[in-house]
């Protein structure tokens, strides 16, 4: 092991100096980043699918325009993160192939279906809310390109959460059927959103390493607790309930206690047995395959233009 390089690297981490692409870094650090960042990119891309489902059925032009803008943002976020991942020496094709082959994971939350319009609200409020909770500390991640991508993403993400909450707020002030739809969406998305923070700390061996390297700044359970505390207050504005009878203020900890997460469900969805795992991957693969001719045509057109401009420059007349 190159001791001197390791020392410089450790010192940079210690002193909060960002690691940049061409700097020496331990293989394990590089691997951990590639895994986390590519999974993050995949999540943005697959995350477009459940919401895309409702673009054509949004209840007003205003809702349709904002939903399109949100989904377009997710595509952009995927691109920032794929680019940042590539700075670690892995190609775009490798990461996309890993997604399509099932080798790489993406956030399990996107394997749940969007059954009603209220789900678009619940995704914005809860799923994007949980994502923001996770992502804000990543703006200080020790790897420069990741941190920079996260800053851009976090700036854009807060509109997503607010538009979601507004959808739920509107439904919650509506008629009985609309109120019921709102509550039902919250019921279905609450627990999967809590799972987004990952396994409990004692079941998450990678977390500690990631925190030592200052990629992550808070543990899964710390972030989850923060999220619960925030949501318990926010749900009051909706005059709705979180589907957990065990939620209760704890004077001693200064936080809300909450019930046990169904980890069996979490691991089943992770393994590929969630309600929409198959459908999501198939949609991704189909989109990629259907786009082949576009990519090839664009490349051929660029090639032709290059050829034409070269021949003109060489003084050859084109018939």
């Amino acid at each position: 092991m190159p001791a001197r390089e390791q020392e410089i690297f450790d010192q940079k981490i210690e002193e909060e100096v960002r690691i940049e692409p061409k700097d020496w870094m331990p293989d394990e650090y590089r691997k951990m980043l590639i895994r986390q960042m590519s999974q993050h990119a995949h999540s943005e891309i697959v995350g477009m699918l459940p919401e895309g489902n409702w673009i054509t059925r949004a209840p007003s032009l205003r809702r349709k325009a904002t939903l399109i803008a949100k989904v377009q943002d997710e595509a952009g976020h995927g691109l920032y993160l794929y680019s940042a991942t590539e700075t670690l020496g892995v190609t775009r094709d490798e990461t996309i192939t890993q997604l399509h082959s099932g080798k790489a994971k993406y956030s399990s939350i996107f394997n749940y279906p969007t059954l009603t319009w209220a789900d678009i609200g619940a995704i914005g409020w809860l799923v994007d809310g949980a994502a923001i909770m996770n992502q804000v500390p990543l703006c200080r991640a020790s790897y420069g390109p990741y941190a920079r991508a996260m800053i851009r993403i976090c700036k854009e993400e807060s509109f997503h959460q607010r538009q979601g909450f507004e959808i739920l707020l509107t439904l919650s002030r509506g008629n009985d059927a609309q109120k019921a739809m709102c509550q039902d969406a919250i019921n279905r998305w609450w627990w999967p959103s809590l799972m987004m923070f990952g396994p409990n700390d004692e079941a998450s061996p990678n977390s500690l390493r990631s925190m030592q390297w200052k990629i992550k700044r808070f543990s899964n359970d710390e972030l989850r607790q923060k999220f619960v505390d925030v949501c318990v207050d926010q749900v009051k504005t909706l005059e709705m309930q979180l589907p957990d009878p065990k939620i209760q203020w704890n004077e001693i900890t200064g936080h809300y206690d909450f019930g046990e997460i169904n980890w069996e469900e979490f691991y089943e969805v992770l393994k590929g047995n969630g309600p929409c795992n198959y459908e999501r991957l198939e949609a991704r693969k189909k989109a990629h395959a259907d786009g082949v001719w576009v990519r090839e045509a664009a490349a051929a057109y660029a090639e032709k233009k290059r050829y034409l401009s070269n021949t003109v420059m060489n003084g050859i007349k084109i018939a």
Partner: protein
Amino acid sequence: MESKSHNENWPLWEVFIRPRQGLDHKHAGSLYAADAQMAVENARDVYTRRNEGISIWVVESKFIHASNPSESDSFFDPANDKVYRHPSFYDLPDELKNI
């Protein structure tokens, strides 16, 4: 599945954006595109969805040459012992004004 990959055919481009009149173009990120026009249009969609720019430059990444980070100590060393390049190096009396 196709055999050709898009980024074997499409070059990588670095994107630079001028946020406002009067400011420099600043590196924003990178993307793949078949040609310069597509790179500029995609850069607009990826990096300026919220009026972050009024001008975009793109350059193929292969044309960027960089200093070597592992040699940065010696490379930037010549500036280290030249504090006299800074105005605070010079000892002047406090009563001296407008200098």
